[in-house]
């Protein structure tokens, strides 16, 4: 490897050619502020547009300052990151960005979690010398998931990179020029009229509040306050390994027990586990897969738990709507069961049972309002809170989360296995399905429950699993751009899989658009994944079909997996959409 000898703030060091000044500075403990820069390279996400000019530094013998995030080192380079010239240029650049930014910090969704705000503090901005016109774009609240406020956009282009390069959804682009320039949709369409999947990855990377989730907290407080409601809450697998970050706990801390205690204190009448519904999903999905394999049905079968993925294939691949499994997602399965089986058990009319979901996801908000996910015009799920909104709710109620004792989920819809737990990570749903499908096909107990070949973080993975005489071929993709590659291979007739798992977000739900902000630190997502597998390892039962309460549900109410009642309650259909 060719090395370059360089000097940063009088410190000598040697780094490989191709290293940016920013990365080289990190090696010797020098921090250079950044704003537009984003590097999650292990997840295939890098934004290096150098548009904000906040990271500029001085390079000897160069007339102009250079953006350290994009400038590569060369042998003999002498860099100053802390000169007055560099520091005042950064301050001026930030002041200019702030000069037309709305000063609504106190009431802003991102208050105290905003990278622009932190940067203003870090660079000691005490006065904004440039004053001028403020932007006056309409705020897009058309969808039930994402709110877009272009007036808070700093044109860092992270959302555009996510939407176009990583997810290949292509809804966002720089529109108009000069002062009116904004990252927006084609023809200034409202988000609801586009092929947005609501994956929320734009929200996950937006440094300001130009893109946020719809705030559903007021709705949840309201339904909780009505005595006549019986409010049921469910918690998705990826929430429990991330929520702690909002209370100063290490990423990857498992806080399942604390979550349950917090939800009870908040006044929910029953606290259920989406992992239970994940096990239920596997019973249906594995049965569907075995059915398709044994009866010459359409293969490959694609998973359907991820609502952003569902929206993606509806708009981008409307000719392939017969490939995905017809299974609803775990959150809507739990909602459907809560408003039928559970409502009957507790003798409450189903319209009085309200279902709230705590999800790492923004697309789940949009999913919950899809009218086909309902029974007799009552939606399966009433409101969805992101992990972040849930954290805010805990804070609002004055609950000291880190000091909470642990407690257990309520019974009936609260029991789960390790297979349900791993739904939160890429590779997890298909591993859970393989554990069950394998025993369904062979009738023998699995010797080895861990399928290491299905795990990891590569964008597209494939594996073969021997089940009796059958060599089951599996594909896995996370990130919608990777999903597109697999789908195109299927269209060309080149892909020869039995089953494919797809999750829209890089890393799967652990990297979901509703999770606590990672602020560009990909290790946060990795630690969440480790925690998910740890939960699985420590579970007494690790196969969905060994979930006693799921088996009881079939015995008491549903009958056979993939049977008539199951079809009515737990399966759905898809609608082709347009690409725009």
């Amino acid at each position, binding site marked *: 490897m060719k090395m370059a000898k360089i000097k940063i703030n009088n410190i000598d060091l040697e780094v490989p050619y191709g290293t940016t000044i920013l990365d080289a500075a990190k090696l010797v403990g020098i921090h250079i502020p950044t704003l537009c820069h984003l590097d999650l390279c292990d997840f295939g996400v890098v934004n290096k547009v150098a548009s904000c000019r906040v990271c500029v530094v001085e390079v000897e013998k160069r007339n102009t300052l250079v953006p350290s995030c994009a400038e590569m080192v060369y042998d003999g380079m002498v860099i100053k990151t802390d000169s007055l010239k560099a520091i005042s240029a950064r301050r001026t650049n930030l002041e200019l960005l702030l000069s037309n930014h709305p000063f609504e910090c106190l009431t802003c969704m991102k208050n105290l979690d905003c990278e622009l705000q932190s940067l203003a503090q870090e660079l000691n901005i005490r006065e904004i010398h440039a004053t001028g016109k403020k932007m006056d774009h309409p705020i897009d609240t058309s969808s039930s998931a994402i709110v877009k406020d272009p007036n808070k956009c700093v044109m860092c282009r992270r959302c555009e990179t996510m939407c*176009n390069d990583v997810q290949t959804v292509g809804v966002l682009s*720089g529109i*108009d020029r000069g002062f009116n320039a904004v990252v927006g949709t084609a*023809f200034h*369409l409202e988000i609801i009229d586009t092929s947005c999947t609501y994956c929320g990855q734009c929200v996950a990377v937006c440094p300001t509040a130009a893109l946020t989730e719809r705030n559903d907290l007021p709705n949840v407080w309201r339904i909780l306050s009505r005595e006549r409601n019986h409010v049921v809450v469910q918690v998705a697998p990826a929430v429990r390994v991330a929520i702690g970050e909002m209370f100063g706990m290490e990423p990857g801390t498992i806080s399942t027990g604390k979550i349950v205690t917090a939800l009870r204190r908040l006044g929910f009448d029953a606290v259920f586990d989406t992992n239970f519904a994940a096990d239920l999903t596997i019973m249906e999905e594995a049965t569907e897969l075995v059915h398709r394999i044994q009866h010459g049905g359409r293969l490959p079968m694609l998973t359907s738990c991820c609502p952003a993925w569902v929206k993606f294939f509806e708009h981008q691949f409307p000719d392939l709507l017969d490939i995905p499994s017809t299974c609803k997602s775990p959150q809507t399965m739990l909602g459907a069961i809560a408003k039928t089986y559970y409502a009957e058990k507790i003798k409450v009319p189903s319209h009085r049972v309200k279902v709230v979901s705590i999800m790492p996801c923004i697309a789940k908000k949009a999913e919950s309002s899809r009218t086909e996910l309902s029974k007799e015009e009552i939606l399966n799920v009433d409101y969805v809170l992101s992990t972040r909104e849930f954290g805010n709710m805990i804070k609002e109620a004055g609950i000291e989360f880190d000091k909470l004792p642990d407690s257990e989920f309520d019974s009936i819809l609260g029991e789960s296995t390790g297979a349900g737990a791993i739904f939160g990570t890429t590779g997890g749903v298909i591993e859970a399905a393989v554990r069950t499908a394998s025993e369904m096909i062979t009738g023998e107990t699995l010797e080895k429950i861990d399928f290491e070949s299905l795990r990891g973080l590569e964008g597209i993975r494939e594996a073969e699993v021997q089940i009796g005489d059958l060599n089951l071929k599996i594909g896995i993709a996370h990130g919608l751009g990777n999903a597109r590659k697999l789908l195109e291979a299927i269209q060309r007739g080149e892909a020869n899989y039995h089953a494919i798992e797809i999750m829209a977000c890089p890393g799967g739900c652990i990297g979901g658009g509703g999770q606590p902000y990672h602020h560009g630190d990909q290790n946060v997502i990795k630690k969440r994944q480790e925690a998910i597998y740890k939960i699985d390892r420590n579970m007494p039962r690790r196969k969905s079909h060994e979930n006693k309460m799921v088996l009881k549900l079939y015995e008491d109410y549903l009958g056979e997996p993939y049977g008539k009642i199951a079809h009515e309650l737990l399966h759905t259909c898809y609608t082709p959409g347009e690409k725009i």
Partner: protein
Amino acid sequence: MIKTNLNINDLDKNLLRDLDSYIESLEDPKGSLINVLHRAQMLFGYLPHNLQLYVSRKLDLNAAKVNGVVTFYSFFTEKKTGKYVVSVCMGTACYVKGSEKVLEKCLTLLDVEKNEITKDGLFSVKDVRCIGACGLAPVLSVGEKVYGHVSADMVEDILNKFRGDENDS
């Protein structure tokens, strides 16, 4: 936000056929967005949203990207223009030589706002950035024809010339 016509079926079929054959003649259509938009604007006179959507589908590009390009370059217009488009250069050289007065005069004489079409459909006026003829500043163009060293007093004669062309034909 606007509700806009995105119905591709409303576009003139004959003009679309011309556009299609142009696109088919290109070696790398996907990489030739700007050329395709030029041709589309030449054929249709402007780039309405449904035409942009048509181009995006035809070239397999995202509509947002196409719209981004159209709204970035001042040459492209999303609005219907007059038969003759009067472009007044507002680049630095033309501006300091008084092109603002030329623009004002055009708008007053034709009794329109910028980018608005005259009642007879003949003219619309727009300001453009540097057209690369700074030596002739201030510059005004009508359609393809470029006029240099223009003063406000000359505008009426120039416009009348095109009115005349219209009467001759």
